[in-house]
Protein backbone atom coordinates (compact mmCIF):
# COMPACT_ATOMS: atom_id res chain seq x y z
CA UNK A 1 0.00 0.00 0.00
CA UNK A 2 3.00 2.32 -0.39
CA UNK A 3 1.55 4.08 -3.42
CA UNK A 4 -1.74 4.68 -1.64
CA UNK A 5 0.13 6.12 1.37
CA UNK A 6 2.12 8.40 -0.90
CA UNK A 7 -0.98 9.67 -2.67
CA UNK A 8 -2.66 10.41 0.66
CA UNK A 9 0.43 12.17 1.99
CA UNK A 10 0.83 14.36 -1.11
CA UNK A 11 -2.90 15.11 -1.23
CA UNK A 12 -3.05 16.03 2.46
CA UNK A 13 -0.18 18.49 2.18
CA UNK A 14 -1.37 20.03 -1.10
CA UNK A 15 -4.95 20.17 0.22
CA UNK A 16 -3.89 21.89 3.43
CA UNK A 17 -1.94 24.60 1.61
CA UNK A 18 -4.47 25.11 -1.20
CA UNK A 19 -7.39 25.05 1.26
CA UNK A 20 -5.86 27.75 3.45
CA UNK A 21 -4.95 29.81 0.38
CA UNK A 22 -8.54 29.45 -0.80
CA UNK A 23 -9.86 30.59 2.57
CA UNK A 24 -7.78 33.77 2.38
CA UNK A 25 -8.94 34.42 -1.18
CA UNK A 26 -12.57 33.82 -0.25
CA UNK A 27 -12.40 36.31 2.57
CA UNK A 28 -11.01 38.88 0.17
CA UNK A 29 -13.21 37.99 -2.79
CA UNK A 30 -16.34 35.89 -2.46
CA UNK A 31 -17.46 35.91 1.17
CA UNK A 32 -18.15 39.68 1.28
CA UNK A 33 -20.45 39.17 -1.72
CA UNK A 34 -22.20 36.22 -0.03
CA UNK A 35 -22.79 38.30 3.09
CA UNK A 36 -24.12 41.14 0.96
CA UNK A 37 -26.46 38.74 -0.84
CA UNK A 38 -27.75 37.44 2.48
CA UNK A 39 -29.03 40.91 3.29
CA UNK A 40 -31.28 40.61 0.22
CA UNK A 41 -32.34 37.13 1.28
CA UNK A 42 -34.42 38.16 4.26
CA UNK A 43 -35.63 41.45 2.83
CA UNK A 44 -38.63 41.63 0.55
CA UNK A 45 -38.04 42.24 -3.12
CA UNK A 46 -37.66 45.81 -4.22
CA UNK A 47 -41.12 47.14 -5.09
CA UNK A 48 -42.30 45.26 -8.14
CA UNK A 49 -45.57 46.42 -9.61
CA UNK A 50 -47.22 43.12 -10.40
CA UNK A 51 -50.86 43.63 -11.23
CA UNK A 52 -51.97 40.14 -10.23
CA UNK A 53 -49.74 39.45 -7.24
CA UNK A 54 -49.08 42.76 -5.61
CA UNK A 55 -47.26 41.65 -2.51
CA UNK A 56 -46.22 38.04 -2.68
CA UNK A 57 -43.42 38.07 -5.24
CA UNK A 58 -40.69 37.37 -2.73
CA UNK A 59 -42.55 34.79 -0.72
CA UNK A 60 -41.23 31.58 -2.35
CA UNK A 61 -37.56 32.49 -1.92
CA UNK A 62 -37.93 33.79 1.57
CA UNK A 63 -39.91 30.72 2.50
CA UNK A 64 -37.33 28.36 1.02
CA UNK A 65 -34.68 29.75 3.22
CA UNK A 66 -36.74 29.77 6.37
CA UNK A 67 -36.68 26.01 6.24
CA UNK A 68 -32.99 26.03 7.06
CA UNK A 69 -33.15 25.88 10.77
CA UNK A 70 -30.62 23.18 11.61
CA UNK A 71 -27.38 23.91 13.37
CA UNK A 72 -25.29 26.58 11.69
CA UNK A 73 -22.02 28.15 12.79
CA UNK A 74 -22.42 31.57 14.38
CA UNK A 75 -21.38 34.48 12.19
CA UNK A 76 -17.88 35.75 12.79
CA UNK A 77 -15.02 33.58 13.99
CA UNK A 78 -16.97 30.33 14.15
CA UNK A 79 -18.28 30.67 10.60
CA UNK A 80 -14.79 31.51 9.33
CA UNK A 81 -13.25 28.55 11.15
CA UNK A 82 -15.74 26.15 9.61
CA UNK A 83 -15.16 27.74 6.21
CA UNK A 84 -11.42 27.15 6.56
CA UNK A 85 -12.02 23.58 7.72
CA UNK A 86 -14.43 22.86 4.86
CA UNK A 87 -11.97 24.38 2.38
CA UNK A 88 -9.12 22.18 3.60
CA UNK A 89 -11.28 19.04 3.62
CA UNK A 90 -12.65 19.73 0.14
CA UNK A 91 -9.18 20.56 -1.14
CA UNK A 92 -7.80 17.27 0.21
CA UNK A 93 -10.65 15.44 -1.52
CA UNK A 94 -9.95 17.14 -4.84
CA UNK A 95 -6.21 16.58 -4.35
CA UNK A 96 -6.79 12.85 -3.81
CA UNK A 97 -8.66 12.70 -7.13
CA UNK A 98 -6.05 14.79 -8.93
CA UNK A 99 -2.99 12.98 -7.60
CA UNK A 100 -4.55 9.54 -8.10
CA UNK A 101 -5.52 10.41 -11.68
CA UNK A 102 -2.02 11.65 -12.39
CA UNK A 103 -0.53 8.42 -11.02
CA UNK A 104 -2.43 6.59 -13.74
CA UNK A 105 -0.20 8.50 -16.14
CA UNK A 106 3.03 7.96 -14.24
CA UNK A 107 2.62 10.82 -11.78
CA UNK A 108 3.45 14.53 -11.73
CA UNK A 109 7.13 15.08 -12.46
CA UNK A 110 7.34 18.43 -10.72
CA UNK A 111 5.49 21.64 -9.87
CA UNK A 112 5.12 22.73 -13.48
CA UNK A 113 3.46 19.52 -14.57
CA UNK A 114 1.40 19.70 -11.40
CA UNK A 115 0.07 23.09 -12.50
CA UNK A 116 -1.14 21.58 -15.77
CA UNK A 117 -2.94 18.86 -13.84
CA UNK A 118 -4.41 21.60 -11.69
CA UNK A 119 -5.63 23.47 -14.77
CA UNK A 120 -7.32 20.27 -15.92
CA UNK A 121 -8.99 20.05 -12.51
CA UNK A 122 -10.21 23.62 -12.93
CA UNK A 123 -11.72 22.79 -16.33
CA UNK A 124 -13.38 19.60 -15.06
CA UNK A 125 -14.68 20.79 -11.68
CA UNK A 126 -15.19 24.55 -12.10
CA UNK A 127 -15.35 25.64 -15.72
CA UNK A 128 -17.50 22.90 -17.27
CA UNK A 129 -20.15 22.64 -14.50
CA UNK A 130 -20.06 26.45 -14.15
CA UNK A 131 -21.08 26.97 -17.78
CA UNK A 132 -24.50 25.50 -17.07
CA UNK A 133 -24.69 26.25 -13.37
CA UNK A 134 -22.77 29.46 -12.68
CA UNK A 135 -21.77 29.98 -9.06
CA UNK A 136 -24.80 31.39 -7.39
CA UNK A 137 -25.35 33.61 -4.41
CA UNK A 138 -27.76 32.77 -1.60
CA UNK A 139 -31.37 33.71 -2.48
CA UNK A 140 -30.84 33.31 -6.21
CA UNK A 141 -33.44 31.22 -8.03
CA UNK A 142 -32.34 27.67 -8.85
CA UNK A 143 -33.80 24.33 -9.87
CA UNK A 144 -34.28 21.47 -7.45
CA UNK A 145 -31.00 20.69 -5.65
CA UNK A 146 -30.81 16.95 -6.38
CA UNK A 147 -31.22 17.49 -10.12
CA UNK A 148 -28.56 20.15 -10.20
CA UNK A 149 -26.17 17.88 -8.27
CA UNK A 150 -26.73 15.06 -10.77
CA UNK A 151 -26.09 17.38 -13.72
CA UNK A 152 -22.98 18.78 -12.00
CA UNK A 153 -21.51 15.32 -11.35
CA UNK A 154 -22.39 14.07 -14.84
CA UNK A 155 -20.83 17.13 -16.46
CA UNK A 156 -17.62 16.83 -14.43
CA UNK A 157 -17.38 13.12 -15.26
CA UNK A 158 -18.02 13.57 -19.01
CA UNK A 159 -15.58 16.49 -19.20
CA UNK A 160 -12.91 14.55 -17.29
CA UNK A 161 -13.18 11.50 -19.54
CA UNK A 162 -13.31 13.71 -22.64
CA UNK A 163 -10.24 15.67 -21.60
CA UNK A 164 -8.30 12.48 -20.84
CA UNK A 165 -9.18 11.02 -24.24
CA UNK A 166 -8.15 14.24 -25.99
CA UNK A 167 -4.82 14.52 -24.22
CA UNK A 168 -3.69 10.93 -23.85
CA UNK A 169 -5.11 9.07 -26.85
CA UNK A 170 -3.66 9.86 -30.23
CA UNK A 171 -6.65 8.87 -32.30
CA UNK A 172 -8.96 11.01 -34.40
CA UNK A 173 -12.17 9.03 -33.73
CA UNK A 174 -11.47 9.16 -30.00
CA UNK A 175 -10.80 12.89 -30.24
CA UNK A 176 -14.20 13.33 -31.87
CA UNK A 177 -15.78 11.21 -29.14
CA UNK A 178 -13.94 13.30 -26.54
CA UNK A 179 -15.32 16.54 -27.94
CA UNK A 180 -18.81 15.04 -28.06
CA UNK A 181 -18.50 14.02 -24.39
CA UNK A 182 -17.42 17.50 -23.39
CA UNK A 183 -20.22 19.19 -25.36
CA UNK A 184 -23.04 16.73 -24.56
CA UNK A 185 -23.94 17.94 -21.02
CA UNK A 186 -24.48 21.44 -22.39
CA UNK A 187 -26.78 20.17 -25.13
CA UNK A 188 -28.77 18.32 -22.48
CA UNK A 189 -28.73 21.56 -20.52
CA UNK A 190 -28.52 22.23 -16.81
CA UNK A 191 -31.71 22.11 -14.74
CA UNK A 192 -33.25 25.57 -14.74
CA UNK A 193 -35.42 27.28 -12.12
CA UNK A 194 -39.09 27.79 -12.85
CA UNK A 195 -38.76 31.51 -12.50
CA UNK A 196 -35.68 33.65 -13.01
CA UNK A 197 -36.94 36.43 -10.83
CA UNK A 198 -34.17 37.15 -8.35
CA UNK A 199 -33.88 39.53 -5.43
CA UNK A 200 -30.11 39.75 -6.11
CA UNK A 201 -28.98 42.62 -8.37
CA UNK A 202 -27.50 41.30 -11.59
CA UNK A 203 -24.25 43.20 -11.14
CA UNK A 204 -23.71 41.53 -7.76
CA UNK A 205 -24.42 38.08 -9.20
CA UNK A 206 -22.04 38.68 -12.11
CA UNK A 207 -19.34 39.96 -9.81
CA UNK A 208 -19.70 36.79 -7.76
CA UNK A 209 -19.31 34.51 -10.78
CA UNK A 210 -16.10 36.33 -11.72
CA UNK A 211 -14.71 36.19 -8.18
CA UNK A 212 -15.64 32.53 -7.66
CA UNK A 213 -14.10 31.54 -10.99
CA UNK A 214 -10.88 33.44 -10.48
CA UNK A 215 -10.36 32.21 -6.92
CA UNK A 216 -11.08 28.65 -8.08
CA UNK A 217 -8.52 29.00 -10.86
CA UNK A 218 -5.82 30.05 -8.39
CA UNK A 219 -6.95 27.30 -5.99
CA UNK A 220 -6.49 24.59 -8.63
CA UNK A 221 -3.14 25.95 -9.80
CA UNK A 222 -1.87 26.02 -6.19
CA UNK A 223 -3.29 22.54 -5.52
CA UNK A 224 -1.65 21.00 -8.58
CA UNK A 225 1.59 22.94 -8.23
CA UNK A 226 2.10 22.00 -4.57
CA UNK A 227 1.19 18.36 -5.26
CA UNK A 228 3.74 18.17 -8.09
CA UNK A 229 6.38 19.86 -5.97
CA UNK A 230 5.84 17.59 -2.96
CA UNK A 231 5.89 14.50 -5.13
CA UNK A 232 9.15 15.42 -6.83
CA UNK A 233 10.75 16.26 -3.46
CA UNK A 234 9.61 12.97 -1.95
CA UNK A 235 11.15 11.22 -4.92
CA UNK A 236 14.48 13.03 -4.50
CA UNK A 237 14.71 12.26 -0.82
CA UNK A 238 14.15 8.55 -1.21
Amino acid at each position, binding site marked *: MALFRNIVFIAALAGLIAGLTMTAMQYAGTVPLILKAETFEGAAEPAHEHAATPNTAAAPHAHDHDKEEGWAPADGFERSAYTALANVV*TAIGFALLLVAASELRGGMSGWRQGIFWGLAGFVVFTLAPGLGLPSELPAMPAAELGQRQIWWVGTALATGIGLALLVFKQSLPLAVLALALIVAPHLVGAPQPESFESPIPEALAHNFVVMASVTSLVFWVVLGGVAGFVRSRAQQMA
Partner: protein
Amino acid sequence: MNVQQTSLPIQSSATSTPRLAQIGLAIFLGLFVVGVSGFSHIEAIHNAAHDVRHSLAFPCH
Protein backbone atom coordinates in the same frame (compact mmCIF):
# COMPACT_ATOMS: atom_id res chain seq x y z
CA MET B 1 -1.51 2.31 -22.49
CA ASN B 2 1.92 2.99 -21.11
CA VAL B 3 1.07 3.36 -17.48
CA GLN B 4 4.27 3.11 -15.52
CA GLN B 5 6.60 5.79 -16.77
CA THR B 6 7.97 6.94 -13.48
CA SER B 7 6.99 5.60 -10.13
CA LEU B 8 7.51 6.70 -6.59
CA PRO B 9 10.63 5.06 -5.19
CA ILE B 10 9.18 3.97 -1.88
CA GLN B 11 6.70 1.89 -3.76
CA SER B 12 9.33 -0.40 -5.32
CA SER B 13 9.99 -2.06 -1.97
CA ALA B 14 6.42 -3.19 -1.49
CA THR B 15 4.25 -4.24 -4.40
CA SER B 16 1.90 -6.52 -2.55
CA THR B 17 -1.25 -4.61 -3.49
CA PRO B 18 -1.60 -3.96 -7.22
CA ARG B 19 -0.89 -0.42 -8.35
CA LEU B 20 -4.31 0.08 -9.93
CA ALA B 21 -6.12 -1.07 -6.80
CA GLN B 22 -4.23 1.47 -4.70
CA ILE B 23 -5.01 4.26 -7.16
CA GLY B 24 -8.64 3.14 -7.22
CA LEU B 25 -8.78 3.25 -3.43
CA ALA B 26 -7.38 6.80 -3.44
CA ILE B 27 -9.97 7.88 -6.00
CA PHE B 28 -12.74 6.31 -3.94
CA LEU B 29 -11.53 8.12 -0.83
CA GLY B 30 -11.38 11.41 -2.76
CA LEU B 31 -14.92 10.97 -4.06
CA PHE B 32 -16.14 10.22 -0.55
CA VAL B 33 -14.47 13.32 0.93
CA VAL B 34 -15.72 15.66 -1.82
CA GLY B 35 -19.13 14.02 -1.63
CA VAL B 36 -19.49 14.77 2.06
CA SER B 37 -18.12 18.31 1.97
CA GLY B 38 -19.76 19.39 -1.28
CA PHE B 39 -22.89 17.32 -1.73
CA SER B 40 -24.17 16.09 1.62
CA HIS B 41 -27.79 17.06 2.28
CA ILE B 42 -27.24 16.88 6.03
CA GLU B 43 -28.22 20.31 7.31
CA ALA B 44 -25.30 20.79 9.70
CA ILE B 45 -22.69 19.87 7.08
CA HIS B 46 -24.38 22.12 4.54
CA ASN B 47 -24.35 25.05 6.92
CA ALA B 48 -20.76 24.49 8.03
CA ALA B 49 -19.53 24.33 4.44
CA HIS B 50 -22.01 26.94 3.15
CA ASP B 51 -19.61 29.67 2.02
CA VAL B 52 -17.24 27.09 0.54
CA ARG B 53 -19.99 25.48 -1.49
CA HIS B 54 -21.04 28.81 -2.94
CA SER B 55 -17.47 29.88 -3.66
CA LEU B 56 -16.49 26.58 -5.30
CA ALA B 57 -19.68 26.61 -7.37
CA PHE B 58 -21.14 23.43 -5.89
CA PRO B 59 -24.91 23.32 -6.31
CA CYS B 60 -26.26 24.81 -3.08
CA HIS B 61 -29.63 25.34 -1.34
